C-alpha cells in the first residue's frame, strides 16, 4: 500500500481538516463530528439537504456541499457508513424550519444509519424525508435482492434536488423531483485494478494483469463478469447498452451523460470512453443535452470508470443548469 497519509486511522479527520483549510469561507465542520455544512447553514426558509456515506469516494460527498447543492455531507470512515449520531447532528445543523431532506445511497449500512438518524430527528420534531438512490444496473432489481446500489448517479440527485431546494421548494416538492431523478437515472461501472482501504492495508480484491470486472461496485463489491480487457469502445458499448436496456428512452429524448473516473483512470481515457458513448447515443437518435466527464464518485485509487445516463425533461434541464457553488461542481 502506497498512500500519502499520516495515521491510516485518522485519514478522515485529516482530510476534513484539509478541506476546511481549503474552503474556510464556504464550508464549516460541525464541531466534534465528521459532518461538513455550508458556512451559512442553516438557511432559513429553505429545505436542508443532507447526504453522505463512507469516505473514499471524494469529491463525493463533501465536495458537493455548497449553494445550489447540499447543505451538509456526513462523512463516514473509509467505505463505512457514518453513524446515526453524526447524521443527526447534520440534520439539526441544516434545519432552517422547512424540513430536511436526506439523499441516501442504497447500501444496507447507509440506509440503516440514515434511517435511525431520521427517527432521532423526527423525535425532536424536525420534519425529515428521504430518497434512496439506486442507479447501478449491475445489480438485479428484484424483491429477492436488496436492490440496486447507489453510485455516480447520486451526484445528479444532489445537483437537481439542490437546485430546487435553493429555489425555495417545499420538502414534498424536493422529494418529488429527487424521486424523478432517481427513477430516470441509470449507471454502470467497471474496474481494471482494485483499491486499498488505508486501515486494511491490502487491496480489497484481485484482478489478473489482463482482466477487468464489469459492473463492479464503488467499494469493490462483485460485478457481473470478470473477463479479459477489451477496447475502450467495447467497454463503453457494454456499459451503455446495459443501461439502455433498463431505461425507457425513445428516439429524440434528451439525456445528461456522466463518464466518471473511479480514481486512477487518466482523464484522457475517460474522454476516449465518452467518444464512444456519445456516438452510440447519437446513432440511436438520443439527444445529449450535457456531458460530464471527470471524477465525481470515486473508489479511492481504483482504476476504472462508470457511465451514467439521466433522462431529462424541461424541469430537470433547468435544474441541472442552475448555478452551483459547491467546490466539486461549479457551473
Amino acid at each position: 500500500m502506497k498512500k500519502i497519509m499520516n495515521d491510516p486511522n485518522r485519514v478522515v479527520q485529516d482530510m476534513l481538516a484539509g478541506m476546511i483549510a481549503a474552503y474556510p469561507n464556504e464550508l464549516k465542520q460541525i464541531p466534534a463530528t465528521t459532518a461538513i455544512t455550508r458556512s451559512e447553514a442553516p438557511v432559513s426558509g429553505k429545505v436542508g439537504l443532507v447526504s453522505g456515506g463512507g469516505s473514499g469516494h471524494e469529491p463525493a460527498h463533501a465536495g458537493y456541499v455548497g449553494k445550489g447543492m447540499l447543505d451538509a455531507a456526513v462523512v463516514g470512515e473509509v467505505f463505512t457508513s457514518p453513524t446515526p449520531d453524526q447524521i443527526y447532528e447534520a440534520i439539526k445543523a441544516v434545519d432552517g424550519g422547512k424540513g430536511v431532506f436526506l439523499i441516501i445511497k442504497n447500501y444496507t449500512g447507509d440506509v440503516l444509519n440514515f434511517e435511525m438518524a431520521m427517527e432521532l430527528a423526527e423525535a425532536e420534531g424536525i420534519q425529515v424525508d428521504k430518497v434512496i438512490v439506486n442507479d447501478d444496473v449491475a445489480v438485479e432489481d428484484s424483491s429477492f435482492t436488496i436492490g440496486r446500489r447507489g453510485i455516480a448517479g447520486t451526484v445528479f440527485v444532489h445537483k437537481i434536488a439542490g437546485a430546487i431546494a435553493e429555489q425555495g421548494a417545499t420538502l414534498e416538492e424536493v422529494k418529488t423531483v429527487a424521486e424523478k431523478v432517481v427513477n430516470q437515472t441509470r449507471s454502470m461501472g467497471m474496474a481494471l485494478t482494485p483499491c486499498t482501504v488505508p486501515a486494511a492495508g491490502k487491496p480489497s480484491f484481485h484482478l489478473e494483469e489482463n482482466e477487468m470486472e464489469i459492473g463492479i461496485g464503488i467499494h469493490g463489491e462483485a460485478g457481473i463478469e470478470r473477463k479479459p480487457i477489451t477496447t475502450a469502445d467495447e467497454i463503453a458499448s457494454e456499459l451503455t447498452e446495459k443501461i439502455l436496456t433498463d431505461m425507457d428512452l425513445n428516439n429524440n429524448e434528451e439525456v445528461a451523460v456522466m463518464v466518471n473516473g473511479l480514481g486512477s483512470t487518466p482523464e484522457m481515457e475517460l474522454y476516449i470512453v465518452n467518444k464512444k458513448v456519445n456516438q452510440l447515443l447519437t446513432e440511436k437518435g438520443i439527444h445529449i443535452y450535457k456531458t460530464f466527464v471527470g471524477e465525481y464518485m470515486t473508489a479511492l485509487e481504483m482504476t476504472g470508470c462508470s457511465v451514467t445516463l439521466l433522462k431529462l425533461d424541461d424541469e430537470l434541464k433547468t435544474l441541472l443548469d442552475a448555478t452551483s457553488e459547491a467546490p466539486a461542481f461549479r457551473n
Partner: protein
Amino acid sequence: MELHVKDIIQWLEKTNEKIQLNKDYLTALDQAVGDSDHGINMSRGFHEVVNQVKTKDYTTVSDVLKDTAMILMSKVGGASGPLFGTAFLRFSMGVKGIDPINQDAFTKGLEDALAGIMQRGKATTGEKTMVDVWSPVVNYFKVTTNVQADEVTQTAKQAMEQTKEIMATKGRASYFKEKSIGHIDPGAASSFYIFEALSEVIKGEG
C-alpha cells in the same frame, strides 16, 4: 448462571480482546464478500466500549448494556453498527430492573436483541448474516435448562461455520450472489466472538 455488572464488563472486555486479536481476519472475511472494513469497524467500536465502560461506576447490567449500545451505534458505522447497537439496546431494555441477571433474564435479553437485529435489518435466518449465529444461540438458551459454557461456544461456532454454505441475500455480501458461497460471513464471525467471550465469562463464574 448469574451475571453481575462486573461479569458483563468482563464479557465486553473479552469480546474486545478477541476482536482486536482477529481484526485482520474479520477484515479479510469482509474482503471476500464485502468492502474490507468489518474488522476495522468492530475494532474501533469495541475498543471504545471498553475504554468508556471502565471509566464509569455502573449499578445495573441494563445501564452497561445501554452504554455499550450507544457507543457501538456511534462508533462502528456501516451495516453492523446499527445492528449490534440495536441488539445491545434491546438487550438492555429487556433486562431493565433485573440485577444480577440469571439465565431466564439473559435469555429474554438475547431474544429481544435478536428480534431487534432482525427487525432493523429486515432479515431472517438463512440469509448469511449475523442473524444466522444469533438465532441458534438464542434458541439454545431458550431450550436449555442449564446452559453450559462449552455448548454456547459450540453452537455459535457451528452456526458461524454454517454461514459458509449460504448464499447471501442481505447486506453487501448479497451483491456477490453465488460467489458469496464458501466464505464465512464477517458479522457471523464477530458474533461468534461475542458468544465465545460470553461462554468464557459463564465458565469463569462456574
